[in-house]
């Protein structure tokens, strides 16, 4: 199977879908002439031209809204936010227009659009540039939220997102763009809303996604393995709609759950997972559910503070040991 980087996987997904459907186009800051601030759209202007690969001014609400209008009028835009931090100035467009248009119009105007870009912290970007924002989008009725953790899922899910008839929030990670991984030969898609068991296990279920899964949780699971702890690791891949059955069945087997996410704790995605599990498989739980999240503070610049603010291998291991009542 071919090995490609996360960046290339996204590029392939967009390129293949643009080949398949001429209504698909890409719009965003520096996506064309500059080949993308993080080079995700490398070579696309040269191949597709300025009609379909479009540089925008710094006007997120404006070009997000243009994408929404174009989608209502029959096109299938991919709108890149240079990072998801900058989507906050366009938040109203995503929440009030993209998410609600199909419903408000009584089923007349659906909005087939993908908003994508890197989310979460990189290294030393501080408070305004290090936000994991999945919760504020997943909270909103009418949006689907996708957060792949590897090249295979990134390509398969982005293709499904572009083909979906509804607005999609697709969150990547700039620190993962260079990650390499195997992808299937040729054409494939991965269904939205389908999680994946990354490692089967019997002692405890750990749910984690995106960069934190790849950079932190997996390492913790390896350490725990050495320590004789058999973790079942689940990557939901899609945050909303969440693959509840996959998680419920795992917890029924392990009777324990730890959720590891990059975002802030209060009313985060992990809180919803904890609630659903508590409600639906209550009798199977042998220990309180633990969450590992970012500290409830804005992100500091200093490296030592930044890494302490984010979930770490140590904190994940500790949480797993806690639900296993080990020490």
């Amino acid at each position, binding site marked *: 199977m071919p090995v490609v980087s996360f960046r290339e996987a996204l590029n392939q997904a967009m390129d293949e879908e643009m080949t398949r459907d001429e209504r698909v186009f890409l719009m965003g800051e520096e996506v064309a002439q500059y080949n993308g601030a993080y080079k995700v759209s490398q070579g696309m202007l040269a191949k597709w031209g300025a009609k379909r690969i479009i540089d925008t001014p710094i006007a997120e609400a404006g070009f997000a809204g243009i994408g929404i209008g174009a989608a209502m009028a029959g096109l299938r835009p991919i709108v890149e936010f240079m990072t998801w931090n900058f989507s906050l100035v366009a938040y109203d467009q995503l929440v009030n227009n993209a998410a609600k248009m199909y419903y408000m119009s009584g089923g007349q105007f659906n909005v087939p659009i993908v908003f994508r870009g890197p989310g979460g912290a990189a290294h030393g970007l501080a408070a305004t540039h290090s936000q994991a924002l999945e919760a504020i989008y997943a909270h909103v009725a009418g949006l689907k939220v996708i957060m792949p953790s590897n090249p295979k899922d990134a390509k398969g899910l982005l293709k499904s997102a572009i083909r979906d*008839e509804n607005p999609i929030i697709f969150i990547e990670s700039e620190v993962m763009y260079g990650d390499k991984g195997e992808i299937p030969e040729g054409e494939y898609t991965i269904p939205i809303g389908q999680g994946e068991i990354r490692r089967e296990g019997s002692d405890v279920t750990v749910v984690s996604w995106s960069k934190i899964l790849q950079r932190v949780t997996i390492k913790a699971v390896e350490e725990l393995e050495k320590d004789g702890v058999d973790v079942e690791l689940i990557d939901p891949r899609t945050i909303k709609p969440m693959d509840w059955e996959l998680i419920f069945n795992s917890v029924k087997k392990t009777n324990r759950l730890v959720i590891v996410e990059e975002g802030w704790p209060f009313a985060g995605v992990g809180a919803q997972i904890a609630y659903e599990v508590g409600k639906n498989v209550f009798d199977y739980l042998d220990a309180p559910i633990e969450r590992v999240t970012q500290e409830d503070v804005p992100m500091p610049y200093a490296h030592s503070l930044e890494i302490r603010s984010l979930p770490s291998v140590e904190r994940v291991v500790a949480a797993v040991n806690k639900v296993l009542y080990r020490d």
Partner: protein
Amino acid sequence: MNTTTAPPLTKKKSVPPHGLSPETLLSWYDDMLLIRRFEEKCAQLYGMGKIMGFCHLYNGQEAVSTGAIKGAITENDAVITAYRDHGQAISKGVDPKAIMAELLGKRTGTTKGKGGSMHIFDKSRNFYGGHAIVGGHLPIAAGIAFAFKYRNEKNVCLCFMGDGATNIGEFHEALNLASLWKLPVVYIIENNKYSMGTAVERSSAIAELHRKGVAYNMRNEMCDGYNVLEVYKTVKAAADHARETYEPSLLEIRTYRYRGHSMSDPVHGHYRTKEEVEEQKKFDPLIVFADILKADGIADDDWFEEAEKRIKKIVDECVEFAENSPEPPIDDLWNDVFYPSSGE
């Protein structure tokens, strides 16, 4: 700064532009009258508690909707507007029965009772809504125009907004992008002098709102919104220009709203006097247009009497249709959240 820069209110007899048949002109009068009577009925029904939520009426501004939409553009052109949207929907050919049913929250309404007064949509008429977040629809209008150009279609998008909407950020972003990318959209400011209770000069650093187009190198004009023929000429020129060159325009049309901002706002009081409103009514677009039609011998008093009867009948039918329509089934609550996707 003040708004005395407005074109002098005028009842001056302006000759109908060449090429407009009497039938066409009379159909415009019908459209204006229908909007007027439809809105009066809405006020009644609101008072009776049959219409809920916010309801923003269009009385006094009819010449803008009729001249711009029924007059200056075609079926395939798109229209998008804010929450004061009944008039534009009617002018675009949206079935007034369906609009009235929507206001009563019925299954037969324009959006099956989902959107209500502020969110009228009709895809079959290229009526893109009905948007209630001020300024939020301005980029959407540019996006619709973007799609027309992308497909090499020669359609244009008319986007209506209030004077107050010119102060919000999305106005700036949308107009800059429309001009920078040459998108066939005509932005129409319906300057009715007030944003809710705030006079233009208390909300905008310049009162000549069309001049904001200068910052975007955008074609911009102002016209008298009391005279449907002036509106027609001005919007037609802008729409034709967009069709030919893809270049957008910013039009400021001076008009006036006779009723309060919404049904909960009194006609006068905090921000304008009874006298001001009465003075304005002397230039009622229906009267202005009727005078022109009479002066040109296109219609006489009998015709106008007939028109009243004809329109009253339509409005009565709207109410009857709406009243007799079913409520949406509860299951509708969970429908239309996501369009079923074949994609995956």
